């Protein structure tokens, strides 16, 4: 009989080999896996729609937390006076109609049958209370951002509200919508709750769904609002699961636990698409990503240096190689999808096409640098927020290009809050601007080309053009002003636009979206989602 220890070794090997082979055989592949396991949520037809979010929420109060995901949750439960459709155009919500009686006066006719999900009717008191709440910078810092100064807001009838602005505004039409700054709730409920949006108190709104459960950092459950005044919602319950880890989200999607998954990483979209019955859709997320060059920080005060940097960025390779074409080369600052809301896609595309372009040309960049105050190059730093992995890769690619013309860039990753606090601090010659507008009317150019721009750039003409755009009543005039302001900044080399990003969303085999666009989740999207099974 062989030595006991040898026997034991043989036994261990005998068990280990098949285990290892078995694991290797079941290694992750791109073969479709549509099996559901015992842990999948109960799915009788479409009683429950499960959405996997790529982040998590600690509060449902949009005024407190301006995160995009908070808007998505609020879009299901709370309404504004108006809403938006998939092209970003205004639609009726709590108001059936509205008109502008003069430059600064808006009159809204409310519907008379709207109620909150607890059955109480929506009154003008509630609307006015919500307006004043949402524009109060102390109570609702996030939504207050969208409200211009008001002269007055009053009820001018049983079902009529009149709002008078202090000055004309190009975008006010969108402000009292759940896609910008207004989420109507019951005055009584808000005042008695104390902690609106928390796990204990939840929220109260008049939208198609009501929140039945909220576990911060875990999930939110919504149920059909039986008092909803519009068309009855299709899905009995909707559940948002917060799954910040992309690999876990992918596994859940492949398993069939998720009907919709947000935030598919650019590198993984092929793997997601390989899941049986899945549709992966990429659409502009209205975001702008580009370099900001502060002309107040040497050696970037030299125009030749700025121009050399602009010519050394290979935008096309970055978009194709790193972003897998799930993005587009940025020609300007505000993305065409946003410009299109007022003037149509064709006009928007023509507008950005007219902007001055800088071609990628390393030789020209070298020559430009040779003419500058630092012909032998110099070193500088570039930080990017840890919330965006793509920016890290793009930073490294840009650093490699700049190295070729003699500029050594030390790329550093910093926590997102640090990056955001350092924006415009006047100490960074080269920095990233990543602006992701949650709503259609929030144009990056409003800030980047204003007098308070984060580049520390003084240009009176550009500032006055941007100010004029803010009050322009004609959408085309607004676009024209913004384009002229952008040209000025680009010619002076203050901004080097790199890419306009996409958001990638995966839809499982049980659902198909209709009219999917950049604004999809800010609309009444469950109504535009068809059950395919």
């Amino acid at each position: 009989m062989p030595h006991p220890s040898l026997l034991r070794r043989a036994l261990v090997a005998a068990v280990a080999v098949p285990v290892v082979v078995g694991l290797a055989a079941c290694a992750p592949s791109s073969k479709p896996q549509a099996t559901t396991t015992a842990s999948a949520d109960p799915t009788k037809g479409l009683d429950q729609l499960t959405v996997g979010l790529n982040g998590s929420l600690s509060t449902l109060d949009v005024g407190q937390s301006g995160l995009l995901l908070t808007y998505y949750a609020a879009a299901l439960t709370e309404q504004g006076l108006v809403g938006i459709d998939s092209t970003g155009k205004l639609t009726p919500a709590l108001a059936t109609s509205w008109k502008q009686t003069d430059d600064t006066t808006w009159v809204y006719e409310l519907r008379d049958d709207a109620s909150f999900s607890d059955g109480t009717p929506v009154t003008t008191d509630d609307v006015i209370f919500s307006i004043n709440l949402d524009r109060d910078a102390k109570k609702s810092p996030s939504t207050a951002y969208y409200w211009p100064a008001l002269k007055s807001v009053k009820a001018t009838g049983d079902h009529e509200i009149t709002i008078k602005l202090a000055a004309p505004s190009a975008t006010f039409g969108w402000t009292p919508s759940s896609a910008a700054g207004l989420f109507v709730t019951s005055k009584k409920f808000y005042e008695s709750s104390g902690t609106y949006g928390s796990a204990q108190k939840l929220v109260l709104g008049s939208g198609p769904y009501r929140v039945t459960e909220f576990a911060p950092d875990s999930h939110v459950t919504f149920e059909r609002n039986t008092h909803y005044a519009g068309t009855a919602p299709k899905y009995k319950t909707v559940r948002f699961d917060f799954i910040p880890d992309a690999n876990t989200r992918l596994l859940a999607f492949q398993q069939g636990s998720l009907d919709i998954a947000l935030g598919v990483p650019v590198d993984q979209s092929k793997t997601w698409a390989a899941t049986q019955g899945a549709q992966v859709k990429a659409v502009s997320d209205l975001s702008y990503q580009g370099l900001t060059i502060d002309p107040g920080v040497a050696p970037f005060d030299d125009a030749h240096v700025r121009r050399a940097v602009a010519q050394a960025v290979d935008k096309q390779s970055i978009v194709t190689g790193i972003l897998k074409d799930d993005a587009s080369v940025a020609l300007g600052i505000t993305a065409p999808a946003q410009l299109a809301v007022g003037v149509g896609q064709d006009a928007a595309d023509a507008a950005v096409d007219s902007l001055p372009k800088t071609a990628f040309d390393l030789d020209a960049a070298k020559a430009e640098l040779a003419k500058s105050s630092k012909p032998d190059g110099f070193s500088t730093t570039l930080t990017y927020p840890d919330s965006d992995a793509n920016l890290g890769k793009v930073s490294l690619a840009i650093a490699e290009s700049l190295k070729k013309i003699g500029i050594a860039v030390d790329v550093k990753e910093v926590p997102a809050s640090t990056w955001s606090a350092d924006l415009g601090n006047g100490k960074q010659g080269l920095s990233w601007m990543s602006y992701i507008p949650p709503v259609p009317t929030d144009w990056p150019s409003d800030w980047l080309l204003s007098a308070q721009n984060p580049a520390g750039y003084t240009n009176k003409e550009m500032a006055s053009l941007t100010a004029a755009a803010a009050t322009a009543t004609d959408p085309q005039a607004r676009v024209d002003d913004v384009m002229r302001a952008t040209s000025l900044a680009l010619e002076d080399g203050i901004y080097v636009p790199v890419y306009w990003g996409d958001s990638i969303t995966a839809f499982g085999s049980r659902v198909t979206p209709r009219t999917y666009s950049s604004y999809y989740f800010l609309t009444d999207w469950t109504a535009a989602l068809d059950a395919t099974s």
Partner: protein
Amino acid sequence: MSVLAFVGRRVAALAAMLVVLSFLVFALLYLAPGDLVHSLLGARAVTPQAEAAIRAQYHLDDPFWVQYLRWLGAALHGDFGTSVRTGTPVAQMLEGRVGVTVTLAAIAGVLAVGVGVPLGVRAARRRGSFEDRAITSASVVGVSAPGFAVGLVLLYVFAVMLGWFPLYGVGDGGLDRLWHLALPAAALAVGVGALVVKVTRTAVLRELDQDYVTFARSRGLSGARVLRLYLRGAAVPIVTSVGLVLASLVGGSILVETTFALPGLGVLLADSITFKDVPVVQAVTLLLATFIGVTTAVVDLFANLADPRVRRAAVAR
């Protein structure tokens, strides 16, 4: 009576330490990069009025000492304030999360100790053998495997391939919650289990070397009795390390919480730190510190009582 005096001393020491810790954390947050105004308003244009409103609301312009003493005064009355990030009272924010993290750490601790100690004893008893090498090497691999990798492998094998456990989330309480936390606890346990195995092995080895073990064996005492004898001797270093390990479990769970999408204290603390949400950071840190202080006190008490050599030292103090 010395036990009572010991407990009394430690409680007082803990209270003093909590105050010092709260001051240190407050100071660190004050110095930390980042800006509450931008965290609340996002990376966009900030009007002077909005900035002034926020600075006034959160007393950001008060001198450091005034801000700290204001927080301390409220905390001493049991009022830990409201979270700046969410507007919810801090106590409410901690409510659900404490349960998740404690349960997770408890299961992981039970797994790590329940599997680690016996393995360590076995390795010591069969010192130098293939089994010994296998156990120590396996436990070291467990230590060296990065947290997210262990989590991902466990996820893939047990949740996806075998389907024995759910993929993510916390479940609906009771048994369902335990089922959901099993895999994440295992991932956590792998990391700390190695330390338990090694310390147990080293401690037991040293006891086995002692004269009294040889004596007991030669006198014909049964294996079980001898085991009890030397385990008692090895108990102190084992308990000391296990105590530290358990204490670190509660604070070090963030990677596992992110992979398995669990609403625990780790994620809350990390998010609150980067947001500079002072009330929440203070509350969570002090809670964890209390837990650690209590654990180390219990471990020290055990060491005092179990090992007469150490007890004499404690009494003499």
